[in-house]
């Protein structure tokens, strides 16, 4: 563990790339090329299960994350072979070296967490985290990662957090926006307790276990509908996390919504505050307007920024939210939300850009707090 810490601090790149090191990319995707890649990280029981049952030959692509859909893979990020997001050299050459963040947080949205067998899901998550450390974090000191946990068993998820927390390169806990129960429910609290203990934010990423349809009216026909509906799922998240009192119970905990979209939030909070004024007695542990709780505890990654280009909506968002501390820079690599290097919808030299690129991520992730863009000898 000491080696890992020394590794990440001492071997930082010199200031370079588009942002000269003064940036943290809070959402890049890495993907497991195949189940086979996890076999070395399984014990003899699970290796035998996987081999005899042919599990090593199947795909665990997630329905909410089709790897080849145009939005999910920018053409110049597509590997010659293999699954999008599985090629380290593309991440490094076409992205990290280009943008030059001092750190990039890798999120592995992997179908193993959707397995109904709680033990198998837990074992797969542990294997994925081992694989992330060996195949990604060890290869580039800029990389950080979210701890993948089995969403169907919060106690086993808490165990994985404990197991992984000693590696400082893991900087948050990964959950999906749409699982079995709203994320504020007490069933999830063992995860939040473990994360709180270790100063790890919870990173809620767009995605669904499809225990419920994404639309209230049922299952639609198109991925486009479900992708747009991710924002509706995050809106429910806000309501749940605040109403259930997660932040009353865990006052130090922060949540980062990733690939959630941004511009839907102000109207949601206007309404939440309005309703709360009269319904307050139902949730009396919420002692300030919900918008204040959100301002203090919830952050959003930048991409996809769902507004017309050049319309000034990022600045308006900050005005409406009454804070410039909520947005965390992200590219959502390799998803196709922007062309070229246009990851930032505002002038990169502006004070707001500096907050988004650099200050806000470091304030949100305690393990990145001491990050510096300059090289350490």
């Amino acid at each position, binding site marked *: 563990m000491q080696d890992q810490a020394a590794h990440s601090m001492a071997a930082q790149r010199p200031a370079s790339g588009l942002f000269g090191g003064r940036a943290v990319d809070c959402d890049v995707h890495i993907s497991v090329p195949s189940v086979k890649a996890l076999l070395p990280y399984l014990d003899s029981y699970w290796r035998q299960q996987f081999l005899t049952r042919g599990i090593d030959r199947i795909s665990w692509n997630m329905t909410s994350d089709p790897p080849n859909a145009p939005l999910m893979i920018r053409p110049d990020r597509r590997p010659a072979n293999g699954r999008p997001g599985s090629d380290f050299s593309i991440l490094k050459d076409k992205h990290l070296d280009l943008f030059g963040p001092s750190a990039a947080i890798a999120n592995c949205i992997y179908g193993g967490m959707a397995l109904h067998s709680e033990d198998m899901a837990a074992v797969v998550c542990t294997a994925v985290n081992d694989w992330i450390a060996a195949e990604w974090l060890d290869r580039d000191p800029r990389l950080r990662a979210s701890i993948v946990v089995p969403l169907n068993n919060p106690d086993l998820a808490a165990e994985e957090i404990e197991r992984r927390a000693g590696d400082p390169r893991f900087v948050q806990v990964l959950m999906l926006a749409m699982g079995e129960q709203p994320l504020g429910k007490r069933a999830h609290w063992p995860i939040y307790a473990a994360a709180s203990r270790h100063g790890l934010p919870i990173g809620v990423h767009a995605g669904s276990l499809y225990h419920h349809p994404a639309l209230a009216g049922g299952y639609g026909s198109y991925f486009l509908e479900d992708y747009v509906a991710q924002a509706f799922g995050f809106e429910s998240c806000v309501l749940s996390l605040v109403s259930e009192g997660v932040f*009353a*119970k865990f006052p130090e905990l922060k949540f980062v919504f990733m690939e959630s979209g941004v511009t839907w939030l102000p109207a949601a909070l206007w309404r939440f505050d309005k309703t*709360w*004024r*009269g319904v*307050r*007695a139902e949730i009396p*542990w919420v002692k300030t307007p919900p918008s204040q709780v959100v301002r203090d505890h919830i952050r959003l990654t930048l991409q996809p920024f769902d507004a017309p280009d050049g319309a000034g909506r990022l600045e308006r968002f900050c005005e409406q939210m009454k804070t410039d501390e909520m947005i965390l820079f992200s590219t959502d690599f390799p998803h196709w939300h922007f062309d070229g290097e246009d990851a930032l919808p505002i002038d990169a030299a502006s004070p707001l850009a500096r907050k988004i690129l650099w200050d806000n991520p470091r304030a949100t992730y305690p393990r990145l707090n001491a990050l510096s863009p300059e090289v350490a000898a």
Partner: protein
Amino acid sequence: MSKSRFVVARTSDVAPGTSHRVSAGGRDIALFNLSGDYFALGDRCPHESGSLCAGKIVGFAEADEPGHYRIVRDGEFVRCPWHGWEFDIRTGKSWCDPEKSRVRAYQTGIASGSDLAEGPYVAETFKVSVEENYIVVEI
């Protein structure tokens, strides 16, 4: 601005724990009786003008953490019958936005140093006194 004093009701009109609506000086007023102390609020929620007199008289629900509920100051709050905003009968202060709420000092005797900042979250209050068996309100 000089105020006038109006006899608006008999004390027996307002039983403890109830509200009673009167009109005086061009205003609709909700009278409350908290264990023998009388209070008067403008009978108009500052939100959308619902009649506070038609609202339920309640205590204030509190919780230190999720799942542990208690009521304090039972009977000292009124909920607007429309959107449910809660008002402290004694002060007119709404608890839905404590940062913005201030006591509106119509009364003499309230420290003049109090903030008089008005917000949309305060019900108008009126000074009330009892003379013999009559309730007198200053408007």
